[in-house]
């Protein structure tokens, strides 16, 4: 009975990895927390699809941008925590700057259009 997801709730392609990395700057977190933080921070505009969250976390781990360990969650349950690595931090900087350039460029294009 799930509602059709609104198109604007969909995460722009290729940005999920970057947002996960950004979330982990605040400290180690497990999957549920990561999703919750992204949703809250975006004022619930973005909805993280679980089907892409976990593959994304595993992918980041494969690329050695995050590391993982099993720890106890807030409710004292065994959970897999992810931690940003030094390499991950560098990647985040690269991604952030690329994203900045991209939004500026898109903004320029759109701004000009809007000016008409």
């Amino acid at each position, binding site marked *: *009975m*799930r509602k059709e997801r609104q198109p604007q709730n969909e995460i722009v392609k290729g940005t999920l990895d970057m947002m996960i990395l950004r979330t982990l700057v605040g400290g180690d977190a*497990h*999957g*549920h*927390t990561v*999703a*919750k933080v992204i949703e809250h921070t975006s004022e619930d505009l973005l909805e993280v*699809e*679980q*089907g*892409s969250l*976990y*593959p994304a976390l*595993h*992918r980041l781990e*494969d690329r050695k941008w995050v590391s993982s360990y099993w720890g106890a*969650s*807030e*409710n004292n*349950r*065994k*959970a*897999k925590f992810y931690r940003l690595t030094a390499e991950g931090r560098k990647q985040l900087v690269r991604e952030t700057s690329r994203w900045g350039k991209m939004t500026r460029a898109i903004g320029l294009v759109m701004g000009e259009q809007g000016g008409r």
Partner: protein
Amino acid sequence: MSWLRLLRRKRSDAELQEEIEVFLTEETADNMARGMTPEEARRQANVKLGNPQKVRESLWAQNSVLPLTNIGHDLKYALRTLSRTPGFSIITFAVMALCIGAATSLFTIERSVLLRPLPFQDPGRLVMVYEHHRGAGASTPDFTYNPVAAADFYDWRSMTRGFEDMAIMRYAGYNLTGERGDLPEAVRAAAGSWNLFQLLGVQPALGRAFTQSEDGPGNTVVMLTWSMFQRRFAGDAKIVGRQIHLDGKPVTVIGVLPSWFTYPDVGIQLWVPYKADATPELLQHHDWHQSQVVARLRPDVSLASALAQVGAVQYQLHLQYPHDPVNEDVAPRWLNEDLAGNVKKPLRLMLCAVGCMLLIGCLNVSNLLVARGAARQREVAIRSALGAQRATLIREQLTESVLICAAGGLGGIGMSVLATQFIAHAWRDLPTAQSIHLDGAVIGFACVLMFAAALVAGLLPALSTTGKTMLKGLQTSARTGASSVSRTALRKSLLTVEIAITVVLLVAAGLLLKSFMRLRSADVGCVTENVLTLKYSLPEKKYDTPEKVNIFNEALLERVRSIPGVRSAALGNTLPAAGYWGDFVFTVKEHPPLKAGEDLPEGLMRWADPGYFSALGIPLVNGRFFSNDERVARSYKVIVSNQLVRQYFPGDDPIRKHLHVPAHAHAGAPSDLDYEIVGVVGDTLYQVGREPKATMYFPIFEGVAGGGNMLAVHTASEPLQLSVMVQKQIASLDPGLPVSDVRTLNQVIGESLVNASLSATLVLAFAILSLLLASVGLYGVLSYLTTQRTSELGIRIALGAQRDQVLQLMLVAGLRPALLGLGLGLVLSLAATRIFQSLLFGTKPLDPVVLIGVIATLLAVAVLASLVPAWRASRLDPMQALRSE
């Protein structure tokens, strides 16, 4: 990285499941904190998560390598389909294993014998140079390459500049005895000029090679081959520098040749210098044609120009010695081809035969796959309707044939290890039999063969089942089977090709077999049953006068003849069917002198004792046999063969005429003698399969010193039982005299035919296998046709068709491709048999017996293979047939 993920994906999946569990718990907890009931909280959490299976699948896919997974799927799928029909799988596997195994074996031999470079230094520049006779006999391949006379060679070497160097060698034989009372042994040896090993680029494994000064009359040194070194001297390196005795003369071992050196063949046990046992007169004789010359071409000179120089020298010699058999030209042959010699043609023939068999095997597998494709038409149609791509479907079916062929190929390689050993041992002429083994290149060849076979066998059925019409499989359902008509046509044409190739193989096998039977039953011209033969050679040191030789020989004959069970005994330098041995040129004294340019008459030379002809059952045509008086007194008598009379005394009585023989190649015998013809005897074959040749027999007691003798003992019963008795007589006369080649005359003949027998047997085996394959194919197609037409036949029978009409209908359906294939095959074999005509003896390529036999066999097999399914069709119960949809 991805490989690691691939290996870890099970664990990764397990972790993910735990993480999902954690997510659900956390989310439920959050929801409960928002005030939901536990059930609602859990439900909402599940809703938020969505389908956990999907999450797992996407991670699984992310961790997989796509093409690899596909191959894995295909393999699994193919394995499952194959294991569902074990009968089919086992048959096709066996077929492919046999075909690939046989092909690999023959390729192994081909490679070792013809393709692999010789182990010599820069072998591409090594060439054999023969004398070549331009006259009438030049067209026959046996006489293109004549052995070289030593005197010719020394002129070539000193007077031409086209070759870096030229060396000469000839075969020899010795009685080997040790320093102490070791067992005597007759060994095959070779005599090589001092520069031979240097020219070939061979370093002795131990010691050194001959020096120029050692290559002269009076032998003092010897080199051992590796096998002799290991066998007789137990690989003891101290033998170098020690003495051994050859024909009673002491010689020093100066070196041992490396183990790979088996030139010119494996049988050679030791080497002596070329001039060691040749008298100076022989070395100067231009008609002592006993040697082979190997030369190394200069890198900057072409073979043609190097040879032109030698040819010019030879032509001068020819003009210089008009009354000697000095050839007017020379002929080259590359060393590797020379060593491969007689093997090349039969080997190529067998390769062709095995190639045909492989093709038939592929076609058969292909045929079976097409049949299965028909059975799976529904499945393919449904899958393609559901969105399977054609490429995927083709790939799947190809995987199946690749699997069959790969398994068959592996089995085949295993089989070929055994088969190669067998063939290499059974085939006498193979020059490098001991170096034949599987190696990387051969296994590579088998793999290529494997995949080529898989493509041939798999592609056609795969394409045919996945064509544009594949959806018809759904539309037509199974009632009419209309869409399968084209596929049946495909199978029938595959079958036609299969049968055509089978016919070619059968014709080839039939011809070879008939030719072999002809050889086997060829009349040698003398008694062959119950004849024991053996060889011995009297060493010249001990038997230095003709008298001593005669005393031994006569005593031996007398003793052997008195053994109970011995009917008679014959002594000669050689026996019928035991080889060419040698020939003399001669002129007939009473005839007018030869015109210029006319070929000198020539005949085989034989020595015989007075009892030789009667013991061997060679009939006297005219005149008389030798008498016991024709001995050292040198009465110069000769007996000639019928062929010689036909050839050189047409319409003339040869008795009391004289043959003038310019050379008598025995040391000490005077040359330029006239021999009076005292008798004419029947022809014997010097080798089975060759035309009889003019022959001269000289009395063995006339005073031939030393030399090898062959004794033939005609016995009343099984001859080999008497061999020990005969050998004991020899040992009692001279305990130091070794005896060799103790065989029956039938064995001697059999051994000269062993190659013909091998190629006939192998090709016949291939042909029978192909026939079997073709009949399985025929049976398969017809059974398939029957199943397919079940309902149609049911209707026919229900409407009143007679059983025998149905039987006839189905038989005709089966026999049509067989007849077509037969016709096509006969036409093809017309072309094919021309190629191996030269391998046939006394058999024409269009031998009616063979052709009729092939046609009858094929038709019989085709009828048999068609009869079972046709009969089954005629026994159909119409009610059951109509309900069977």
